[in-house]
């Protein structure tokens, strides 16, 4: 038996950097360093653990859609231990929304061949958390999402989903789409050996024509939503800051009462 896992990852602007928008109201990727979205590290980790716990022959492919620099995200995942990588890169992808991204991912996953797709719960830039569900809808396979625990055995995936009001145990037959939360398990650091090995691992490059996608289906033109305006939030007016000299709690209470919270 073999198990083919595709891990979808995203190259995102560093959240600790000064993120902003370009003139066309897409995310500016030129002026801020990018990296593998932290939440996707958990997806790579879970794929590696599934592989380590499996008697099957497991192959882990990392897949990303993004500009040239996005290769850095793939290299990081390869150095953690993934086997190979696919980079979907095309100038026409600039400005693609979540709908378009899910289309490209689904087509690429189908082309790569898969039994299991593993994603992070959300990207750390867009943060919507809808792409895994969209990919499942497009692929016509079960979604087993937002898992804090995940296991694959006997052709089925099981996991725990912690919701607002309840924790649920889920089960679905493969093939399926899984997304994992930051509670699924600390992601490993790449070892020196892993980093050296990653340099030799294959990275395939595909463009839209390889996936049979027309340019107008993606990009800013193909987006089904329009950002009409983006404005930097005005800096907060400096707040009142007091030093506690024994009455700090009472002073704070006075402030809260003045604001009608008490």
């Amino acid at each position, binding site marked *: 038996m073999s198990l083919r896992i595709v891990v979808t990852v995203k190259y995102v602007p560093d959240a600790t950097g000064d*993120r902003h928008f370009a003139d066309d109201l897409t995310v500016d990727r030129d002026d801020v360093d990018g990296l593998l979205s932290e939440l996707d590290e958990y997806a790579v980790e879970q794929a590696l653990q599934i592989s380590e716990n499996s008697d099957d022959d497991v192959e882990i492919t990392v897949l990303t859609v993004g500009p040239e620099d996005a290769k850095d995200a793939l290299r990081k995942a390869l150095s953690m231990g993934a086997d190979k990588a696919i980079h979907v890169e095309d100038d026409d992808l600039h400005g693609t929304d979540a709908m378009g991204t899910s289309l490209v991912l689904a087509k690429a996953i189908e082309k790569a061949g898969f039994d299991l797709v593993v994603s992070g719960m959300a990207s750390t830039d867009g943060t919507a958390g809808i792409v895994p*569900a969209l990919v499942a*809808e497009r692929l016509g396979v079960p979604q087993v999402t937002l898992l804090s625990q995940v296991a694959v055995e006997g052709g089925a995936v099981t996991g725990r989903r912690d919701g607002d009001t309840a924790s649920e*145990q889920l*089960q679905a037959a493969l093939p399926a789409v899984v997304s994992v939360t930051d509670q699924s398990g600390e992601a490993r650091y790449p070892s020196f050996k892993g980093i050296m090995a990653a340099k030799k691992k294959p990275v395939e490059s595909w463009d839209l024509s390889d996936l049979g996608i027309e340019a107008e289906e993606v990009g800013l033109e193909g*987006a089904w*939503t329009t950002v009409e305006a983006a404005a930097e939030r005005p800096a*907060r007016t400096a*707040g009142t800051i007091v030093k506690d000299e024994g009455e700090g709690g009472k002073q*704070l209470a006075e402030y809260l009462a003045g604001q009608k919270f008490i």
Partner: protein
Amino acid sequence: MAEVLVYVDHVDGAVRKPTLELLTLARRIGDPVAVALGNGAGETASVLAEHGAVKVYTHEAAEYADYLVVPKVDALQAAVTAVSPAAVLVPSSAEGKEIAARLALRIKSGIITDAVDLEAGENGPVATQSVFAASFTTKTRVSTGTPVITVKPNSAAVEAAAAAGAVEALTVSFSQAATGTKVTSRTPRESTGRPELTEAAIVVSGGRGVNGAENFAVIEALADSLGAAVGASRAAVDAGWYPHSNQVGQTGKSVSPQLYIANGISGAIQHRAGMQTSKTIVAVNKDAEAPIFDLVDYGVVGDLFDVVPQLTEEVKTRKG
């Protein structure tokens, strides 16, 4: 007027507050038509009518509890077919966003997630979003299909507005995909008696400075004096001092209460991403250089174990 579908988030017939907020927002763009699914769906009708629902579609079936997400998508799609709405509004919970996304894809419509405000516009509803850890505000509209918009809790004040609330049974035929992901067991979250974190008007949070699970009692006492929810920073959760379900931040929950009180939290970007849209921000921290003080309306530089209990006592006294 155009009809606007509102997906009802309820627990066994008890409607959760974000749905009532959605009904208020829906009235800005049309006549709200509510869709309530699953066990207790019929019991939601009266409270929905009191908040402006002209019609309430209900459908009860075991599938909604027994399988993940897709049965609800099937039902919402049936409702869209029945009324051809001007927009579909869904609460921005994790599940709500997944339901909305799959629905939008099926009906070939754009989706906007995590809106914090909604207005009627010339070309359809315009949603306000708060992005990049709330450092930017964007105005976005759906340009293709029927706008599907998920709205964050606390984005509007709940307003009562009596309407007919005529109950109608929705006809739903489940898709093949509906039974794909089985819910094999469900453990309800133990109630703390405190408001739910994302819905609370006041959130009191603790971080690294709380320095131990047992010390969270100090944070809880303040929260209880104010009728608030308790939050925790990732550092506190990773240390095992407080449950992950209470984590505020980029990888936890995003909150937008009227008042946010951060105690012993330095204010790393990951935390700010989850609380920066709070209306009033207050912090207590020993370190005068902590980045959280850049965000606050009122800050106290001091030991939280001195300041917080004193504040709690003062709140109790003032509330009599």
